[in-house]
């Protein structure tokens, strides 16, 4: 197993072009959280031609609704949620410069096409590893939609957040390739 690749946000086209499926990546810098309800709001703003609460260029959105932080904890347990529910909104965000998404589970063909066309990648974080992932969050603050509770958009500063490349810019999909490789008749 090769060593993980360290990346710092914001990501450039060159950063994502060199990633291939199965690569382990340690993310550093600022990322944003957003899941179902926040995605709908971002999508509606784009449709109305209005400004978003943060600039998407080069950024990564993590699909997560954290557990409440305990006193003394920066961030509550925070594993990924299932990504397909964001599929309807993701292509528009990718078009506006989003470079990465972190979640779990397979994406739609439309999202994969958008990733190829605009050079973006999809990462899987380990579902259920909420306690481990939360420890890699060094700072967290809500920047939009506080009313959504666990679904509010948060700006996170992460240190070596472990993720795996599932969809690369060449249209490969680790969910398909991985299963094929280990399938036995």
């Amino acid at each position, binding site marked *: 197993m090769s060593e993980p690749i360290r990346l710092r946000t914001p990501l450039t086209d060159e950063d994502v072009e060199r990633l291939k499926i199965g690569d382990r990546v340690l993310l550093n810098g600022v990322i944003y959280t957003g899941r179902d309800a926040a995605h709908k709001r971002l999508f509606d703003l784009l449709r109305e031609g209005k400004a978003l609460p943060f600039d998407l260029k080069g950024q990564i959105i993590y699909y997560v609704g954290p557990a409440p932080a305990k006193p003394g904890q920066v961030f509550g347990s925070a594993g990924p949620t299932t990504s397909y529910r964001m599929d309807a909104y993701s292509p528009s965000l990718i078009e506006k410069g989003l470079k990465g998404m972190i979640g779990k589970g397979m994406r739609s063909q439309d999202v994969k096409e958008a990733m190829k066309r605009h050079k973006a990648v999809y990462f899987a974080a380990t579902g259920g590893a*909420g306690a481990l992932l939360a420890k890699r969050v060094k700072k967290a603050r809500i920047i939009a939609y506080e009313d959504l509770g666990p679904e509010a958009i948060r700006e996170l500063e992460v240190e070596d957040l472990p993720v795996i490349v599932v969809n690369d810019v060449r249209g490969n999909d680790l969910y398909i390739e991985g299963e094929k490789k280990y399938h036995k008749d």
Partner: protein
Amino acid sequence: MREIDVKLITAKVRDLCMEANTDLGEDVLQAFDRALREEESPLAREILKELKENARIAKEEKVAICQDTGFAVVFVELGQDVHLVGGDLKEAIFEGVRQGYRDGYLRKSICHPFTRANTGDNTPPIIHTEIVPGEKIKIVVAPKGGGSENMSRVMMLTPSDGVEGIKRSVIERVRESGSNPCPPTIVGVGIGGTFEQAALLAKKSLLRPLGSKNADPELGKLEAEILTGINKLGIGPQGLGGRTTSLAVHILMMPCHIASFPLAVNIQCHAHRHKETEI
């Protein structure tokens, strides 16, 4: 006749909610170790190591193993010689769940089906009560995550489908679920009974310790065959490819109607949380 104050039940349920969500059972950790020895995919082994590390952090720091701290499913075996005093059983359990999810900083994940408005305190729990002989109360709290529950099904097979139909249907359900239920999973199977009883059998089968034998050797053999079939699929931990798609298959069976052949598959993610106590 033994008198038990329901306040004691509230306190126990509170503690069990917190323990179950932060302390993964030794049987699950041992199943991770077994999987690590047998897994061929290097990436899958990394994921299994992450799961072990995650469980260690959650236990040491008393934080949630997974942010989805689940629907609180509570099994109560109430001895028929117990007389409950100081309030009613249902409200005592509700209050235990409320306190446990508040004091344990656990996520509240229960909402109105249409408006999606959160109930705010993770109530209502799902309570299954059984009256048993004796003067004790056994309480099991098993928080159930949404992702794996969504992949579960009840199927009314035809008697002619036979045992082969059971094998085929369970393996197909796991295949279709892919990465969604957070593999490696534990597959609970309920066979027989009625529509709702099959589902309950499937859920109850999950409570058996991982690595233990089925009391019925015929079902034990069927569990092993289905598990082998599942782990040939190649889905692997998190669906990224590998040998360890499921850690175990557990089956509970009871007689069914001459016209029926009910099958329920309840999929459980690797955050296989349940704790119990006896009063």
